Structures are given as structure tokens and as C-alpha cells.
């Protein structure tokens, strides 16, 4: 059996965390959840994480700042943004760190199977079909 992909979800909304966790767990991912930036950084330090999905509005920090901090400390991990603001566009700094427009997932997630595919393709380096 291959090692499961490890995913970290960061959102202060419990409903959002639970619903996405349930889906990803059913799909065989190892899911970790954090309700704030500090908790997430703590998790990143203690468990191996392949993929992190960050809400933009965290109680203790801005999601962008979180990624900027985390990417420096954990360059091997992948980060994407999860936001309800449809008008959100990547900042220059995040672009420079290698994030692309398709690294943004908008709330609510209408198709969870697509999220599964996206995580697999990003982590395994296989292009999306």
C-alpha cells in the first residue's frame, strides 16, 4: 500500500473544515485540520504535510502572510488558497513564490471530486486531465 497523501486544511469555520475533511478522508487522504495560522505552523513542524489549503481570513493572520512564512520554512510543501472572495487575485509576492491562478479554490466547492483530482495531480506532479 502506498503512503497516503497528507493534506492540511486551515479554516476557522468548523463546517467548512469538517465537510472537506470527510470527503478527502473518504478518498484516502490523511487529513489534518487547523483553525488558525499558529496552529497550522505547529502542525507543519510536527507532521509531514504534502499539501496545504489555506483560507484567506484567518483569526490570527492573513492567509497570504501565512503562505509567505510557511513556504520559506517548508519549501517542499504545496500551498493553495481557499477563499469566498471571487474577486481575489494573487498578490505579486505570491506569484513570485510560484503560485499560479489555478492555485485558488473558491468557496463554496461545487465539485469535490475536482478538488481530489487537483490535489493528486499537484502532489504527484501529474497534469490534470
Amino acid at each position: 500500500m502506498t503512503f497516503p497523501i497528507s493534506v492540511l486544511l486551515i479554516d476557522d469555520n468548523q463546517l467548512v473544515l469538517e465537510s472537506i475533511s470527510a470527503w478527502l478522508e473518504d478518498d484516502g487522504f490523511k487529513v489534518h485540520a487547523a483553525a488558525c495560522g499558529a496552529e497550522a505552523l505547529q502542525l507543519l513542524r510536527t507532521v509531514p504535510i504534502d499539501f496545504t489549503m489555506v483560507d484567506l481570513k484567518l483569526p490570527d493572520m492573513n492567509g497570504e502572510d501565512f503562505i509567505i512564512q510557511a513556504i520559506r520554512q517548508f519549501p517542499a510543501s504545496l500551498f493553495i488558497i481557499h477563499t469566498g472572495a471571487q474577486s481575489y487575485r494573487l498578490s505579486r509576492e505570491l506569484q513570485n513564490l510560484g503560485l499560479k491562478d489555478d492555485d485558488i479554490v473558491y468557496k463554496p466547492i461545487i465539485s469535490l471530486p475536482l478538488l481530489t483530482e487537483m490535489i493528486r495531480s499537484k502532489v504527484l506532479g501529474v497534469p490534470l486531465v
Partner: protein
Amino acid sequence: MSIILGILFTVICFIFVHRRVVKSKTDMLESELAEQRETIELQRIIQHQQQAILEQEIETLKQSEQVLKENEQRLQIIFETSQSGIVQVDTQGTVVFANHRMAEMLGYPLEAVIGSRYVEHVHEDERDMATSSLQQVISGEIDHVYTERHYAGTDGNDFWGIFSGKRLKGADGETVAVIGIITDISERKQMRDIMVQTEKMIMVGGLAAGMAHELNNPLGGILQNTQNIQRRISPGLKANDTIASEVGVDFALVQQYLQRRGINELLHHITMAGTRAADIIANLLAFSRKGTASLEPTPLPELINRALELAACDYDLKKRYDFRNIRINREYDMVMPPIVMNSLEIEQVLLNILKNAAQALAERPSGTKSQITIRTRRSGQYAIIEVEDNGPGMSEETCKRIFDPFFTTKEIGVGTGLGLSVAYALVVNNHRGIIRVDSEQEKGTKFNISLPFSTQENA
């Protein structure tokens, strides 16, 4: 000697007397002459004075003639150069006098305007109103009219004017005619409408931004958990079978039960409702979208073709109004330079208009082929995009409210009433453009989008 002396004396006396006589005669003559001279002098003075008076009168006459001429010329210049139309309407309602501007505004040659009936030029919506107010002025019931008026013009080139009219009175105070001045206020009115519309957008935008963000989380909970439930009651997931056997139920029977009770259907309805709510929120957020992030020069034909492709594969459109059955005419100005814009937003605008057109075309009775014509052209500093359909068209009332948020003519649950107001917000607020709609019932609808080539102010 004495005789001589006597004669001498007599002669002397005679001379003396004669002299006296002559002198007195001379005196008399002289005084007569003087008197005559005086009379002549007097007459001369009188004549002189009379002449002066006459000259003065002539001068005064000349002056008043000049004043009259100037007055007339002034009126003539005002009449000819006025940017307002001026008409004189007789008591029968016939135009007897009009300036060129009036003819230009109405779209007829001056000769055709003179002799026509004034109320014929008023748009039919207001013709009765105009007839009665003209009557009131003619009858003297009211002295002056000042009102906004909708005029017809030729070929549907109607315009809005301010009519200011007053009675022209004859010598006995009877009405001879009504003089009216008509100022075209179409542009002003349009600006006012745009401002009102923008206000509405800002209000909705403010409300939307606040609530949309908050709503996306609970919606995520609903939609994502529905997907979880659907998968957990369907075959295919290993965990489902495992747990079913652990608790000792036949998973196939559970599914049968759910099927017969319509649970899957009910869950599908939750998904539909949630997705729709998400759509509405996404649209609402477009109102508050500020600061067009990625402005780039975009060639219009490319952009329009992309919007057409999107419309053709739009699920909703395919389901209800088959886009493939509509003939699309493309009339692009291929030499037009690219326009600096947020292409995603303008694509959205076009898509919303195309969807609207497709929906309208689905309502028209079968007969001639449904078609949408898209034209682009340059007009000064603006690029114009026209989207015209040959659908059933809209009433004037609908046209007026077409860009209002939540205004829809579709049945409840079909339209959100946001598509075109979002289009409006994106064009006017985010691109400093103009969006207009012209429609005629039974003929079709034409949307006209003007986008400035330079969007430097666009922040």
C-alpha cells in the same frame, strides 16, 4: 433886391422844408424797412426752428428704425443660431414658423416641418398630454407651459426635450399663436439615468460585499456535506461496504430503500438550490468588485469569439435554449486596435447579454430564423460593441428597468435578475464605459456597449 431876397428866402425855406419832408419820408421808409427786416428775421428764426425740430424728428425716426433693425437682427440671429428648436404654432395647432435647429432635431427638412401639425412630432406616449396642454395655452387657460416632453423624430430617433411655450397675443389680447422653445435634453437625461443606476449598484454592492463573504462558508457546509452524503449512500466507496457489513445491513437494500423514498432526488435538489445560491452570491460580489486587477490590451474579435464559445457550451443555455439553433452574424471591425480592459469582466458582460438574447429568442414564435448579430466599430475615443437579436423585444417599461438589480421578466426561480445589472456594473463602474439598450417589441433588442480605448483613470 427884396424880390431876390424873397426868392432866396423862399428857396431856402423850400429847401429846408423839402429836406424836412424828404427826411421824414426817408425816416418813415427806413422804419418800414426795419420792420420788414425784423419780420423776415423772425420768420427765418421760426423756419430755422421748425427745420431743427423736423431734423430732430427725422433723427429720432432714424434712430428708432435702427433700433428696430437691430432688434430684428438680434431676434433673427437668436432664431438662427439657437441650439434649441423654436416653433410658432397657430391656434389650429399647425406649425407656421420654425428654425433650422427645430427641423434638424425632428429629422425633417424645414419645409416639411412648416405646415405640419405640432403634436405629430410628439411621441405617441405623450401626444394626448401635449394636445391638451397646447389647447390650454391657446385658450388662455394657462399662460405658459414648461415641461419635459418625449418627441418622436424620424425612424425611431426619438429624443427628450424641455418644451417652454408662451402665448403670442394679438392687438385685442386674443391668442394669435404659441411660441415654443424645445431643448434637447436626451443626453442630460441619460446621464441622470446613469447616475441613478450607479447609485443603485453601489448600494447593492455595499450590501453584497458584506454578506456574500459570510454566506459562502455556510453554503460550503451545505454543498460539500451534500456531496459527502451522496457518496456515502452510493456504491463505489469501499468504506461504505465495510461499515454496512460491520453494522449488519445489506448495502444494496439500503440503496433500494433510499431510491424508493426519493432520497437521492431530494439530495440532488439541495445541491441545485445551493449551487443557485452560490451563483447569486458570485454575481452580487461582482458589484463590489473594485480595482480591475489585470488590465490588458485585448483584441475585441478574440474576446467576443470566446464569449460566444462560452455561451454555446453553457449548461443552462444548452438545457433550455439551444444556442446552436441561433444564427450568429459577426461583423467585426478588424482594424480596430486592442482595448485596455479586464478581459474576464467584459467576457462576463458579453456572456450575460448573449444568455439574455438566447432566452429572449427562445420565446419568439417560430418562423424566421433566430439570429444574433455582433458588431464592433470605432467611434472617437470609444470602441462600440453591439449585440442585436431578432427576438420579441421589450416594452419601454422593461427597457427602463433592465439594468436594475433583481429585476427579471423570467418566472421566479429561472432568472436572478442580476445578469444585466452585473454587466452594467462591470462596464460603467469598472471600465468607465457606457451600456445602453434599444428595443422594439416584435422587432428585437440591441445592446450597445461603449468602452474607452484609454482606461488610465480606470483604477
